[in-house]
């Protein structure tokens, strides 16, 4: 079952929830994979500390122009919607970092002067994370994507990751923050979207935006409240009004913040946190009908 863990914004504890969900499922001996689609700033590996076994490049095809064949007709510049190719006097100028690899110029060129060659935009690393359980080491599979620095297009990396995800009982996908193209690319096609929020007005604002986006994708949605206990009731009122279930509430705790800041897996060290995550796993099983 594919669970996308999302939030309108970063810093709400999305990665904490995703990592610990996968880790806890793994600790219970169930097959689990943690997939980090937050390719601009993947952080899950800092906690799971996986052993990377395989690295794949992510490439998009960009045009290459053969000057001898080009007759300066300018068709390529006309079709490009991203200003990645332009005619300056009678010479074709290419801006590869703007190119979306759509192939339009390649198809449109009447003289066959354009071929395509791959441009490296990022990489996908996969491997295994080992978690120490009292009865021995447990494995959580791991995949994450890393967008190259100064690269502006995360979607191709996410698209490639999605194609690589194997079937597991628990596929926990850490979505990019926000509501833009990369979050949408991650959440669509998931069986369930878990939105992590905080009990503050900022949290509510971000949650409302995220809910609106997920609803358009037609994915069932539930909420996890992180750092609960602020006394603010806006989030619960919103969920009640919209008929969105709150699956778990994680109390504000200095202990959890400390374990997190060290980069450790919280379910391994805090029994209270582990039982919250257990409750969440159980509810997810029920809601998605995959309980065995």
């Amino acid at each position, binding site marked *: 079952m594919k669970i996308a863990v999302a939030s309108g914004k*970063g810093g709400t504890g999305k990665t904490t929830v995703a990592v610990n969900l996968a880790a806890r499922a793994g600790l219970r001996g169930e097959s689990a994979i943690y997939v980090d689609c937050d390719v601009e700033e993947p952080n899950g590996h800092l906690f799971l500390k996986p052993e990377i076994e395989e690295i794949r490049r992510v490439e998009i095809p960009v045009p290459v122009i053969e000057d001898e064949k080009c007759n300066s007709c300018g068709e390529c510049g006309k*079709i490009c919607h991203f200003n990645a190719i332009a005619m300056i006097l009678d010479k074709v100028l290419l801006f590869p970092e703007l190119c979306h690899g759509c192939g339009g110029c390649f198809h449109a060129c009447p003289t066959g002067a354009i071929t395509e060659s791959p441009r490296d935009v990022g990489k996908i690393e996969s491997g295994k994370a080992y978690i120490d359980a009292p009865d021995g080491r447990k494995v959580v599979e791991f995949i994450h994507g890393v967008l190259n620095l100064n690269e502006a297009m995360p979607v191709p990396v996410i698209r490639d990751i999605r194609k690589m995800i194997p079937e597991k009982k628990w596929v926990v996908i850490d979505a990019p923050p*926000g509501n*833009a193209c*990369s979050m949408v690319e991650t959440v669509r096609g998931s069986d369930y979207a878990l939105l992590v929020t905080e009990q503050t007005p900022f949290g509510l*604002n*971000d949650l409302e935006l995220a809910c609106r986006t997920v609803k*358009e994708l037609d994915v069932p949605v539930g909420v996890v409240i992180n750092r609960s206990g602020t006394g603010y009731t806006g989030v619960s009122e919103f969920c009640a009004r919209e008929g969105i279930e709150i699956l778990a509430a994680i109390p504000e705790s200095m202990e959890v913040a400390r374990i997190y800041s*060290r980069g450790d897996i919280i379910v391994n060290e805090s029994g209270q946190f582990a039982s919250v995550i257990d409750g969440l796993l159980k509810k997810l099983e029920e809601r998605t009908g995959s309980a065995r």
Partner: protein
Amino acid sequence: MKELVIISGKGGTGKTSVAASFAGLAGRVVIADCDVDAANMHLVMAPVTRETTRFSGGKIALISPEICAGCGKCLDLCRYDAITEENGSYAIDKIACEGCGVCAYFCPAKAIEMVDDENGEWYISDTPYGPMVHARLGAGGENSGKLVTLVRNQARQIAKKNKTETILVDGSPGIGCPVIASITGADAVLVVTEPSMSGLHDLKRVVSIGRHFGARVLVAINKYDINLDMTDEILGFIKDEELELAGRVHYDIDVTLAQIAGKSVVEFSDGQAASDIREMWTNIALALELEE
């Protein structure tokens, strides 16, 4: 005119709380909320909107079923799996469409049109601290970089017209196109970070971007007392990289309570965090030679 952009490797580091407080401390300012994906400044700025403008981030394809001859050419050409076919009738999956226009260009029946993808709005508002430019991007919004640039340019124009010395920009999180659009050409960038493994990791990535765009980089460590070892590590990084430390802010529940009250931290409280932020602003004003 000086433009200070406040960013963080990721959301949730308290960036907006810091930015909102600065607005109160700076005297006459123009505020730009460039976190268009999940804007939060308006929640503590009490803006009264004066102008609303629709925003179109790009184009998407639209097939006219009456004209479509059902040849399937668009399906073959589309590299984003955005064309769907059901019983010989073709349609566009709006979410997958990148707006490259290849289908429209090559459709032999001329059945496809590229239409404006209106998916956002931007606003000019009045706040007690000065004018504010902010925006809202719809679900799956593409081209947030373009909207960020628009918001910044509007803020600059207003500042120029009103002869305001300081522009405060609440930047976009992450390292992708929006954040690049938030910081290019700024006088200084303040990176708000947290003392955690992921905080340091994000800081490193974001600093290299700030550098790449030639901005002066200052760093603020929020909630520094959560993990003093990590704070030391961040201080070491700041020293090694010859960055400037703007200040340190204690962990303080007042930051959350201020949010719930819909106020900036310095306006709401006289506590630890508030006085840390005041001190930080004095440092920054001095560093940037801002007039008080």
